[in-house]
């Protein structure tokens, strides 16, 4: 066996494909060009943290030339000084101008002009599972100064509602996210850019979260249309309050469901009675039904039911699954009320 290494020209595979694409309207940028173009808009953010497993750094994306940076709302931003370092090494002081606590998106302002921005496409269609994407982030803080953030490649594995926790804490967002097949969500990654292979911003890398169902660490991104909505709300001043999101318990009595008294550590959520004329009665729930899921999330105990309902925003649709005579029955209870009803 002799050296085979010089037989094939560099990127032979790419070359073959590019030659064949000559008849097509435009030449595709190489992955390197796509990454280099988009990475100019990715910002390394340094703020508070560095203790008890909380990183003091994350990532953000410049979304307009006058210096608005979208990032993930986190403890990193709990700092008077938020350092933002651009791809070319320029350093700016970031000013937190607002946050959407439900989507956990924050906007920082940098004092700059003609900065390289990736547009936030509010009308971008949701990516289909199987779509190839690239993730650009300040993972592990390995890039400093004018060093480029890290690039990873992957595929959108699923588009599903987020159902996750970080440690003991809930993630308030329950909307759709892109689940990715690569490990994009590392320390420092939150707020990183998810781009398609044309370099367009299609999502924002989320926090490090674990799936409620399986406990595995999630690799996910918030779709760009949700990021755009959060950005618009923040700029319009609509999203500075925690938007009636509560991680506290919510008694299902407000929906007409009276559960068995909470006598044990994990009292199973059997329905004792259903109040007549209530949303629960209208949805067809009955006494002795066992609640097993609220909005797709397993509820093994009475406490879990209250927590699952408490995690929903006011107005979010409430769908429950119950076991009745050995079969699972799904019921739609309508929008979640604003406050707990009568006990």
């Amino acid at each position, binding site marked *: 066996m002799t050296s085979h*290494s010089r037989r094939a020209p*560099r990127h032979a595979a790419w070359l*073959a*494909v590019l030659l064949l694409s000559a008849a097509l309207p435009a030449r595709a940028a190489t992955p390197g060009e796509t990454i280099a173009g988009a990475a100019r808009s990715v910002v390394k953010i340094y703020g508070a943290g560095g203790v008890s497993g909380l990183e003091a750094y994350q990532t953000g994306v410049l979304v307009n030339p006058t210096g608005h940076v979208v990032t993930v709302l986190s403890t990193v931003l709990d700092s008077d000084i938020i350092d933002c370092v651009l791809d070319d090494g320029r350093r700016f002081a970031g000013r937190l101008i607002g946050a959407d606590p439900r989507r956990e998106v924050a906007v920082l302002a940098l004092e700059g002009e003609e900065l390289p921005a990736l547009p936030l496409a509010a009308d971008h269609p949701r990516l289909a599972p199987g779509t190839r994407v690239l993730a650009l982030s300040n993972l592990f803080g390995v890039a400093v100064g004018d060093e480029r953030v890290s690039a990873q490649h992957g595929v959108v594995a699923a588009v599903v509602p987020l159902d996750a926790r970080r440690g003991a804490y809930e993630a308030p967002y329950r909307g759709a996210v892109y689940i990715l097949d690569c490990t994009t969500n*590392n320390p420092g990654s939150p707020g990183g850019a998810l781009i398609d292979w044309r370099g367009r911003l299609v999502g924002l890398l989320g926090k490090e979260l674990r799936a409620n169902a399986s406990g595995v*660490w999630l690799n996910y991104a918030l779709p760009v249309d949700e990021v755009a909505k959060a950005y618009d709300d923040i700029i319009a001043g609509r999203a500075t309050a925690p938007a009636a999101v509560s991680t506290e318990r919510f008694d299902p009595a407000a929906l007409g469901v009276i559960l068995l008294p909470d006598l044990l550590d994990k009292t199973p959520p059997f329905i004792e009675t259903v109040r007549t004329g209530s949303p629960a009665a209208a949805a067809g729930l009955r006494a002795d039904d066992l609640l097993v899921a609220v909005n797709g999330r397993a509820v093994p105990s009475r406490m879990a039911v209250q927590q699952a309902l408490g995690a929903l925003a006011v107005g979010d649709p409430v769908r429950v699954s119950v076991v009745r005579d050995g079969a699972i029955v799904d019921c739609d209870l309508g929008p979640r009320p604003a406050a707990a009803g009568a006990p």
Partner: protein
Amino acid sequence: MRAVSVGSECRRKEPRRWVERHRLHAIAVMVAWVVAAPAGADETNVGSPAEIAEAAAVVADAVLAAERERVGIMARAAEAAVAIFAGEAGGGSGVLISPDGYALTNFHVVQPAGLAMKCGLADGRLYDAILVGLDPTGDLAVVKLVGRDDFPWAALADSDDVAVGDPCFAAGNPFLLATDFQPSVSAGIVSGVHRYQFPAGTILEYADCLQVDAAINPGNSGGALFDATGRVIGINGRASFEKRGRVNVGVGYAISANQVRHFLGSLKGGRIVDHATLGATVATAEDGRVVVSDILESSSAYRRGLRYDDEVVALAGRPVRTVNAFKNILGTLPAGWQVPLVFRRGGQQREIEVRLAAVHPQAELAAIVAGEGGPRQRRRPRAPGKPPAPGEEQPPGEGPGAPGPQPQRPEPPSLPEALRGLHEARPGYANYHFNVVERQRVAAAIAAHHRLERPAGPWRLVGRLVDGEAFRIELSDRRGSIDLPTGTTTVDATGELDANPSPPGSGGLLAALLVWRRLLLDGPDPLGRTTYWGAVVAAAPGAAHAAVYADVLEAAVAGVEVRFTVMADGAVAGIDLWMAPDADPCEVRFDAAADRAGNGLPGMFEVRHAGTTFGRFRIDEVVMEAAAETAPAAPADDGGAER
């Protein structure tokens, strides 16, 4: 943040290969996408399954051909992958880089294995391998597989050509899965280049390394990172781990092929090599400049004029814009190399040549290689006060199966039959046997190039300095003399040479030329303690892969230290002679291209000392007398020299 080495591991076995296969399919999709992208309508999600299906229908043959080619490249590259087994101490990966069995791996893979190890190849056979050279600081090692002279191998690429986004793949032995020696292949893209990863204490520093999202797991350590054409761009050895446990999180690091190239000569020469320090530290000033924050007065840089607060602009031909960049450049250079440094002071820019000192005292390096706490110590050294990272621990390697041999020990009786005679213990060396091998190779090249033999009379070198003044040099076994416009000086060649740095200002030119004559006539071995030192860049025409490396022989002769730079054809290209340690050497640089006398000797040479040029000598005539010095002068026996 933690990045830890991922080498020796782990008896836990998991069915992970399907993951690698899955990634192969992902490549097919990636190739398909490039075709699809231009055709895709804007309202379609780029790279969506529908778009790929549409594109594949148009150019399926080309895609399939590209895919077949890629699978073929991976299969051929995998043939060069080595599964290293170190018994109870774990194991890792390696890659063959020459048909005679030299393979690269990580220091932290072979350190617990000791002198001998078993290596499996994709052909399904198990080979004996012996330790050759170690670089504890750079986490590199060279081993040699035995039993064939036609091993499959892979060539080193120029890793400075690697760009973010380039496809790449790793072939190795993750989780020590390869019980049938078939390497696992994982593909990805290059995530970052010129990364700096802090060392564990003073060793295992990853400077100027490549970052990839190809899966790098425990056991992949020491294996190759290949580019899309199957050339080696790096040696995988490290990954960032965090709360998810000691498995890949898409952040692996590889030692660059160009750094490997810098150290390869010394490693093949059986040495325990050290990395370089400038003798100065740098820091970022408030205005962003990289300035000298501390400097040793004993350093070469200080002697050449570098001072506290000077701005470092470039090192070894590469720009220094951040402290990381400085560490990246320095971290890839071997101790003892001479490199240019550009600095700025008060608006004025200066370029100096600095000699890089060693990071570690040799005894310290030997202790690290031996495992710090004694020969049974199996764990990697860790910086004092640095908490152990999750999963950073290596299997302790206890038990009766643990290999006994250590690099510093004499050849143990347990050395397999196939490796007998391939080891010689000597302090400072991982395996001195290979130093002898390299020294004999260089000696043969010198002899073949010059074809000079004893008996030999005096040599007379007559010519002119570049400014036109005449010179005349006479070298014999008894004495050396030089006539210069500034006067005549003489050195007694029969005694110690360190007392006479003649002619004045040269740092010892006559001594250097006398030792040079002895080398050409007698070969390196009779000079004194002659060893193979390693390789240096003799010419760097831009690209690193095109750099011309020259061998360096080191000798201690009559009180002086000498290093000869020898080109691949055996031509001696340079002499560096130290009258005393830590002094500035006399540097002689021969221009082999200007061989006017036609006898294998150079036609021109330049002499430098202490940062200034002493003189440039044009040789018009070389006379080599054949008779003994005591005999009357006879006609020069050119035939003898040319034979």
